[in-house]
């Protein structure tokens, strides 16, 4: 007998569908598991593995495994494992908050530029282009060196140079979506502009922004690492990049002190980008049948 099943029994939101898609993507799931592990380590690691990471516990630069120090010790004889665990929190915090700054500025500028035409768009796009021609790393180096190497300043500096990408994506999405018929329908239905922007267009524009934001976390971590490597860093905390930067001169002898945090960054960013790719595929309507 021919079964004509014209309506699925359960109401499934685009997001739950996306989740379904995501779950089928093995690489993305692995990435997510790694990422969650890292986040959990960052959150509860300090409890499980107590001790001030800045305590000097053993002979400096002793290789991994010695005396039970899994990843060895750094140039001051501090436990690398402990530093790594605390560094996870710092690096992730910088990553997430820089991504947050980026996304907030980017969405605001992009949404307004994409929604309104005329001088608003013109002005905001010029602003975006302006920030786009600033050499990102150099500019943030200058900011950090001028205004102090504290974490918030570093975060701000990263956010400040990174938002144009988000703004461009947001604008493009807004320009695409604002021409779609459901937006016209909403206007015909008397929906006000701010509601149009934030509750009609924005949610539909989010997928690529979410992907970008996810990837942004990764690039912010890399960015911070780069600044740390150049010595533009807050010495009172130990981000992964900073661990690399300050162990840099010992690489010939104790390359693990650079390799290990490098691998930590690598794995984290890789996990983030796997998740980002997964999100991209899952949220991309082209890849989902209509």
């Amino acid at each position, binding site marked *: *007998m*021919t*079964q*004509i*099943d*014209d309506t699925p029994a359960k109401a499934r939101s685009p997001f739950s569908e996306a989740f379904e898609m995501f779950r089928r993507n093995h690489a993305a799931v692995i990435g997510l598991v790694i990422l969650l592990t890292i986040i959990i380590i960052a959150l509860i690691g300090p409890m499980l593995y107590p001790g001030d990471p800045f305590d000097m516990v053993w002979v400096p630069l002793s290789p991994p495994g010695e005396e039970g120090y899994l990843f060895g010790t750094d140039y001051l004889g501090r436990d690398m494992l402990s530093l790594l665990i605390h560094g996870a929190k710092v690096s992730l915090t910088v990553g997430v908050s820089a991504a947050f700054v980026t996304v907030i500025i980017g969405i605001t500028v992009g949404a307004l530029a994409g929604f309104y035409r005329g001088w608003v768009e013109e002005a905001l796009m010029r602003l975006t282009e302006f920030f786009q021609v600033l050499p990102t790393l150099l500019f943030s180096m200058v900011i950090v060196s001028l205004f102090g190497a504290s974490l918030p300043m570093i975060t701000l500096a990263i956010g400040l140079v990174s938002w144009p990408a988000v703004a461009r994506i947001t604008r493009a999405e807004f320009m695409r979506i604002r021409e779609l018929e459901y937006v016209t329908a909403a206007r015909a239905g008397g929906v006000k502009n701010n509601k149009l922007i934030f509750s009609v267009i924005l949610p539909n524009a989010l997928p690529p922004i979410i992907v970008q934001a996810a990837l942004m976390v990764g690039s912010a971590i890399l960015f911070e690492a780069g600044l740390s490597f150049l010595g533009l860093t807050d010495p009172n905390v130990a981000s992964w990049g900073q661990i690399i930067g300050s162990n840099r001169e010992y690489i010939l002898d104790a390359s693990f002190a650079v390799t290990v945090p490098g691998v930590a960054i690598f794995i984290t960013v890789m996990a983030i980008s796997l998740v980002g790719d997964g999100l991209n595929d899952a949220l991309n309507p082209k890849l989902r049948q209509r």
Partner: protein
Amino acid sequence: MTEPLLKIENLRIELALRSGQAPVIDDLSLELNAGETLSFVGESGCGKSMTALAIMGLLPEKVGSIASGRILFDGRDMAQMNDTELRAIRGNEISMIFQEPMTSLNPVYTVGEQIAEVLRRHKGMNKRDAWARAIELLDAVRIPNAKSRVSAYPHQMSGGQRQRVMIAIALACEPKILIADEPTTALDVTVQAQIFDLLRDLGRDTGTAVILITHDMGAVAEMADRMVVMYAGRKAEYGPVSPVINHPRHPYTKGLISCVPHLLAELTEERPDLTEVPGIVPALASFGTDACLFASRCDLADDKCRSQRPPEVAFGDQHSACWKADQI
């Protein structure tokens, strides 16, 4: 009778779906004679384009494949050919034009280059000759000022002109068969009339057989000699145009004709409601079911319809796959 130009025998095309293999085309047989126009009609998704692509050997890679059956062209089975052999036929003896003139031309090459390319490939022409021939072809498809338009890019042309360029490409090698997959759907009626006019004239001049895929019964009536009505990957009805349209032997054909408001010669104030075919086409996954796939939307359906696949019944040249064909 002479041998048909193209003969499709029991063609079955399967698609790899998430849920497994499903037949998009199931047991399709038909013949195309030299110089005639054969039309495919049917609802969206019933497999018209798949059939065309199968003939071209262009089924979507890794997704679609010919599961069984033969496609005999000039006595050779195209279903068994390798890519090289197929490429020698494609664009040369069988060519195709597509629905979307806007996107079917490569935006980064001039139209002249895109026409000349086929000529170089199949006719071994040199650059100069191919270019000169391209201008002639553009002229033949009635593009004004062909000499200067030949170096235009697709985006510099209107939809109708692009479709003409597509036709020029398709006809460049004077193919034996031209497959036109909904060539005018994206165009305005006035332009559609121009294109149909052109196709008819060119077909007459070159003796090219045309497979015209469309969903417009009017177009079928005007353009085609014979028609195939497809439903859910199967042939519902098959025969010369005029008997099929005037006296359909399949409830689906009937519905298809009567649910469309046609331009009428005699207008009345009265406007009765249109005939409705309830429901929608079954999902691809159930295309293989041993039953009449139209049964769920058919007033006449009974248990037999729902449990056994109807055989093909002939009424002269007209064939219908319906248990109740004789009652209609």
